[in-house]
């Protein structure tokens, strides 16, 4: 083990990463991330008041009552670490995440490129500062363990904790990096306390044995340490000697998935654009296929000749294929055509061609996959499991025919009016109920419910038997019993029941409901609101 010479690595350390991931760029107010009643990370402002990592929550709150506490969320930390990893990747490929806030890469390549480890570290820091991560520290040493300690021990840039930040050049020069020369790892580690081994159990035992520093530990014979502490102890012993054998496995960079096409002259007709986009869509699916990925969510950016970008994300229940992408481009163009103002159109264009070219022209289409998944999850099954796939293909065909909104799935939502209690979501989109259907919603109808619901409610005539108007006063009294509904005599009725729906900004619905059965035994649910009668639904 001692013969192995660890390779030179460069460790990038982002101090207090959980805070950075949760709160964004520095400076942070006094905040602590807490897990299981212990402080996991705290901002410099909190540290000034004596809050320390590992403290109990109550103790930290006692030191600083205004301390804001955040729950720990490892997933968020990891997600948040992706952008800095990408930023590092643009400067030096082959970066590996040790844990959120700590990245490692082999020092050899980048040092050679920049002509020295120091120059490389400085270049990386400048780059990260420009990318918005001025707090990053770098340690270069033999093996990730030593390098991490070097990074942590790198003298903090004197201005790093100040609010007024010097310009990027200065931060990089303020030696936010530390380089331990090859072979000097043991000497660098020797004065450090054993606690840095991150193994509290063995560390406390070592301290009780009188082994207080890594130098003390490294001085012990390997075999004795192994006899006393087992494999784990031997590994810690190796670390203390500066012989960290952990290899660096590089993260493969993200493949370039997005593709775009530019048109020499702006295209206005959706068919033209869809035809032209076909090849780009093929490119996207091909690059996905090469990476063994499939795309489940895509963003389509349409740039018109004024430079305005129309962007929309599209979901797919299974995964996008080239034809699906083309469809989505077409639907987006159609919805664009439907919403764009027709005022600035040349007056000579007839209404039929107006439908085809109300937007003035698209010069660029960009297809960018947002969510990708492993292609292995989407292989069609050999037996049996292909049912949903077939279903999806057939329904997508209908959707291609009728447009995105043409095929919908229904869902129940909360509400008082019948029309509010159901919602339609285009096929393939995520169903998000607008209002929680499980809340009580006082005033909604009991079963049985009308088999026909008019969305929006349809105007209907309800009159007294003599043909006179019916009014409902403030106390909910009818001026006359209903005698005619939709032209036919009423045989039975009940109500009125008040409906008060103050959704949103106060201009909700304030009306009264009646159930009516007419001579033809049709049962109506009518609503009297704003001095008019509306049919909400018909029971049969």
């Amino acid at each position, binding site marked *: 083990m001692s013969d192995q010479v660890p390779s030179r690595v460069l460790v990038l350390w982002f101090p207090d990463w959980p805070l950075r991931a949760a709160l964004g760029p520095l400076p942070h107010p006094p905040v602590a991330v807490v897990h299981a009643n212990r402080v996991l990370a705290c901002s410099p402002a909190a540290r000034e008041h004596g809050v320390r990592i590992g403290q109990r929550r109550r103790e930290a709150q006692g030191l600083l009552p205004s301390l804001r506490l955040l729950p720990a969320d490892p997933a968020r930390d990891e997600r948040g670490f992706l952008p800095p990893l990408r930023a590092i990747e643009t400067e030096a490929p082959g970066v590996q995440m040790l844990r959120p806030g700590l990245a490692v890469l082999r020092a050899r390549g980048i040092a050679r490129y920049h002509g020295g480890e120091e120059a490389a570290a400085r270049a990386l820091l400048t780059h990260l500062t420009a990318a918005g991560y001025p707090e990053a520290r770098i340690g270069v040493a033999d093996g990730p363990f030593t390098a991490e300690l070097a990074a942590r021990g790198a003298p903090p840039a004197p201005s790093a904790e100040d609010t007024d930040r010097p310009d990027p050049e200065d931060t990089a020069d303020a030696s936010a990096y530390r380089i331990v020369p090859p072979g000097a790892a043991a000497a660098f580690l020797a004065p450090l306390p054993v606690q840095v081994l991150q193994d509290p159990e063995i560390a406390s035992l070592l301290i009780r044995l009188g082994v207080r520093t890594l130098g003390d530990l490294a001085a012990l014979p390997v075999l004795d340490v192994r006899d006393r502490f087992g494999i784990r102890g031997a590994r810690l012993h190796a670390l203390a000697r500066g012989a960290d054998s952990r290899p660096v496995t590089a993260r493969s960079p993200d493949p370039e998935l997005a593709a775009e096409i530019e048109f020499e002259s702006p295209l206005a007709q959706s068919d033209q654009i869809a035809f032209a986009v076909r090849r780009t869509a093929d490119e996207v699916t091909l690059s996905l296929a090469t990476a063994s990925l499939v795309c489940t969510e895509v963003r389509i950016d349409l740039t018109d000749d004024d430079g305005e970008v129309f962007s929309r994300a599209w979901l797919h229940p299974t995964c996008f294929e080239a034809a699906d992408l083309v469809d989505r481009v077409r639907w987006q163009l159609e919805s664009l055509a439907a919403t764009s103002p027709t005022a600035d159109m040349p007056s000579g264009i007839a209404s039929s061609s107006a439908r085809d070219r109300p937007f003035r022209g698209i010069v660029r289409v960009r297809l960018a996959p947002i969510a990708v998944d492993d292609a292995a999850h989407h292989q069609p099954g050999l037996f049996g499991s292909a*049912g949903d796939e*077939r*279903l999806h293909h*057939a*329904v997508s*065909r*209908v959707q291609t*025919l*009728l447009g995105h909104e*043409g*095929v*919908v*799935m*229904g*869902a*129940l939502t909360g509400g008082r009016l*019948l029309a509010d*209690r*159901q919602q*339609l979501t285009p*096929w393939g989109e995520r169903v998000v109920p607008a209002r929680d259907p499980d809340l009580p919603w006082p005033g909604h109808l*009991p*079963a*049985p*419910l*009308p*088999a*026909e*619901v*008019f*969305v929006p409610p349809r105007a209907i005539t309800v009159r007294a038997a003599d043909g006179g108007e019916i009014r409902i006063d403030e106390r909910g009294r009818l001026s006359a*019993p209903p005698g005619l509904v939709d032209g036919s005599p009423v045989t*039975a*009725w*009940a*109500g009125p029941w008040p409906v008060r729906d103050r959704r949103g900004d106060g201009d909700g619905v304030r009306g009264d409901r009646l*159930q009516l*059965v007419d001579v033809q*035994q*049709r*049962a109506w649910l009518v609503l009297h609101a704003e001095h008019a009668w509306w049919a909400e*639904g*018909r*029971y*049969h």
Partner: protein
Amino acid sequence: MGITLRTVDPGESTRAGEILRLRQEITRMQRRRSDLPLIPVHPALAPLFPDGGLQVGTTYALSSSPGLVAALLAAPSRNGSWTAAVGMPTLGLEALAGHGADLARLILVPEPGDRWLTVTSALSEVVPLIAVRPGSRLRDAEASRLSARLRDRGCTLLLVSSAPWPQSEGSIRVHDPRWHGLGEGWGLLEGCDVTVTAQTRRSPVPRSVRVRLPGALGTMESGIREAWTGEGGSAESGTVRLATTETGRAQLLAAAEEGTAAEAMPFPRLKAVV
């Protein structure tokens, strides 16, 4: 169970019986798939159909009753199969869910316009039960192409239309509704008693049940205690059904039951059944 009207059995008239037997033989031989031979219906409606469910790969003409559509879609949907409703923008989803339909397995195409036929044939590839309100009339050639496709794919079509459908397996009508629970300014709708009458090629004599659609819980309920007296229009609506199918096949059918069904719908016998 509701009241079943069974006025003729196949043995009663030898000629009609022979035709029926042959027709059943044809249906048996035409069947393409061995799995799922029937689309389940609500138990209250089972007596209407000779096999206790809807035939796969056929078309049924429905009277314009969203409640009936909901009840027929709900039964297979609660068994986990996909269903679709084409051209019905006003279908009450909450009522449909009340019948037990799974909205997550219901495909809605509210406004197909003139392309309802294309949409229906595309969906028939994958959805075993589709309710359609046609937006336009169909030529005979198109109708027979659709029928062939339905038979091939094993998809059952519920056609909500007042116009007769030339090649339908049968018709299901809802008539004589009577609402309960509402008075002169008091009460709350509790349910509606309706008569559902079905007439299929395999049992050309209309069969009827009196059910509550919808019942007080929003579902279909059977077992109405109230004696049905067959007031006024019932007898007519029972026989008129034969007159609505006008194509050659229906005429053959009418010829087969000549003298048995058309005139002699013996409502006195119905009384006896009660």
